[in-house]
């Protein structure tokens, strides 16, 4: 019976009939492989959180909510409050983004829309080289070159103009929150620029041509057809930069002044979560001290997740309905 069927099939489509039925194995394997990889990342995040929680359990029990709500960090008296570190991490990252985002996006727009072809590659290579500078080198450069210069020229200038606001008041010593923000800005600049550039390059030319056809000027084309079109992707680039800024350690430690305080003035020294771990972990001899430092790691982990979630929420509201989903 079956032989007849095959013969019949042969007669009609000889080539097809000789093939075995298509195997679904590759499809299935591919599905499960990618699925397991994706879940491995989730699992990793959960494991990190669990490990941090376990390592700091006694501190969590002892200090409870006070840990994130109080400001005294005193290893001698075993009083641990992480608020100044949370504040320092948030403010230094905010300063970094305020400086780096306009710079990066403008650079990316210039490189994709305006720059003559021969100049693009050299600039791109230079920006990528910036990303390759080790953090500690940048920090030492910060101490010996950037801070003396900032202290002598831009900082007094800022104080003359904006000294009446609380943000730029008080004596200028050099190492301070603003210097920390600036060094982080330098570090996140390459990543935001490179990603933004790729995103702007992926904007279809049809967009630009359509805008030109409507009589738009070059600025209008860039603004309406390119930047606005790609804003979802650009936002993603900023989030990547933010992630880097929150966790940046060595360079910030060297220029921020390492003083756990919450001060309005950006000329006052500050401290970040990552810095205090780097500074104090190696010489922490008591159990509670070590636990408190691991809890700082847990807080940093939490802050990063929280800020990323907030950013996602913000992204939904600013891009609601308007932006196409294609450019990611």
């Amino acid at each position, binding site marked *: 019976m079956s032989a007849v069927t095959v013969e019949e099939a042969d007669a009609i489509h000889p080539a097809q009939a000789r093939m075995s039925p298509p195997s679904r194995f590759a499809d299935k394997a591919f599905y499960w492989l990618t699925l397991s990889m994706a879940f491995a990342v989730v699992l990793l995040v959960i494991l990190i959180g669990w490990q941090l929680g376990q390592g700091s359990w006694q501190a969590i029990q002892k200090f409870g909510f006070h840990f994130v709500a109080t400001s005294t960090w005193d*290893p001698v008296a075993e009083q641990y409050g992480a608020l100044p570190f949370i504040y320092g991490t948030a403010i230094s990252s905010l300063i970094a983004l305020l400086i780096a985002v306009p710079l990066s996006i403008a650079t990316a727009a210039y490189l994709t829309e305006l720059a003559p072809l021969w100049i693009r590659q050299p600039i791109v290579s230079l920006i990528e080289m910036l990303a390759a500078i080790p953090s500690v080198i940048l920090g030492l450069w910060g101490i*010996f070159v950037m801070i003396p210069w900032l202290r002598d020229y831009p900082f007094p200038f800022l104080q003359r103009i904006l000294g009446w606001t609380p943000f730029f008041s008080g004596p200028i010593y050099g190492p301070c929150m603003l210097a920390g923000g600036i060094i982080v800005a330098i570090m996140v600049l390459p990543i935001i620029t490179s990603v933004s550039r790729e995103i702007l390059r992926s904007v279809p030319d049809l967009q630009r041509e359509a805008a030109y056809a409507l009589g738009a000027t070059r600025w209008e084309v860039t603004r309406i057809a390119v930047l606005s079109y790609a804003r979802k992707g650009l936002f993603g680039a900023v989030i990547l930069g933010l992630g880097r800024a929150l966790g940046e350690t060595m360079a910030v430690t060297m220029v921020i002044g390492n003083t756990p305080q919450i001060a309005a003035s950006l000329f006052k020294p500050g401290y970040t979560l990552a810095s205090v771990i780097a500074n104090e972990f190696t010489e922490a001899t008591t159990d509670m001290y070590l636990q408190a430092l691991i809890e700082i790691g847990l807080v940093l982990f939490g802050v990063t997740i929280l800020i990323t979630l907030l950013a996602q929420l913000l992204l939904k509201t600013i891009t609601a309905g308007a932006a196409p989903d294609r450019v990611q």
Partner: protein
Amino acid sequence: MMKFRRRIFLGLAIALGLSASASAQMTINGAGATFPYPIYSKWFDEYAKVDPSARFNYQSIGSGGGQKQILAQTVDFGASDGPMSDENLAKAPGKLLHIPTVAGADVVAYNLPGNPALKFDADTIAGIFLGNIKKWNDPKITALNAGVSLPDKDIVVVHRSDGSGTTYIWTDYLSKISPEWKSKVGTNTSVNWPTGIGGKGNEGVAGQIKQTPGALGYVELIYAIQNKMPYADIKNSAGSFVKPTLESITAAMATAQIPDDFRFSITNAPGENAYPIAGATWLLVYQQQKDATKGKKLVEFLKWAQKEGEKMAKDLDYAPLPEDLQQRVLKRIDEIKM
């Protein structure tokens, strides 16, 4: 071709032979303090010529890590810039011995126009670090430095931001000489500083002092010497102003009270020539060694370090132990059992 092949064979044989002899070697693992790392590596290097069969592997991960690892018995010896606390010693599965090796000092470094030679006493140092003395021309400072014109400028206090033995010595000194410091701040590898900005590592503090006019901070003597920074003479408890030198550190060890468990502090030591802000560094070993052959090698090395190693200290800007303390330490090493 034949020759070439023979050469390869020879090479292989040598390589095999070497790896065989390497596996016959014994590796003794240690971890801990960063401050003595340069002299320890010099010792391990030199000791390899004395006993080629013992190989040392030392990780300078910090005193905290050193104490933790010797308590967990993951290393054969630990190293620490501060003596272990009673609380931590109680966690040890056996009796832990403190073996002092060398000493160093903290110096008061500063940045003033022309970098004049300055003198400080306990009161002014405590005042500056508590934030009570804020200006360079404060009467307390000018009284000690007659003839030096000091500016009407803020003192920018710089301290270590990372936990370190240097800070331990510094805060130990301040706690001894200032009741206010003792009650408000205390002694530790890092503390809740009443004032000042934090620099990471000796290089961070030194960099900030060098770059900030009017700055004052503390760095290790070795670091100040090697970077040619100006540093102050300090008035000791006997009332004389002492320049920080390797001799005045050893003098502090010679006059300080040293208990039999060697968990001593030599800050504010009595004695005419003793520099008051100094501290020793220790190796931590168990009195009862688990591995007899390893223990024997370790004891031999410790003895060699006290007898021969101490002579190399000065070349690397570390202060050696005084003679009679060396004898006491050697006796203690003899008590290590296999």
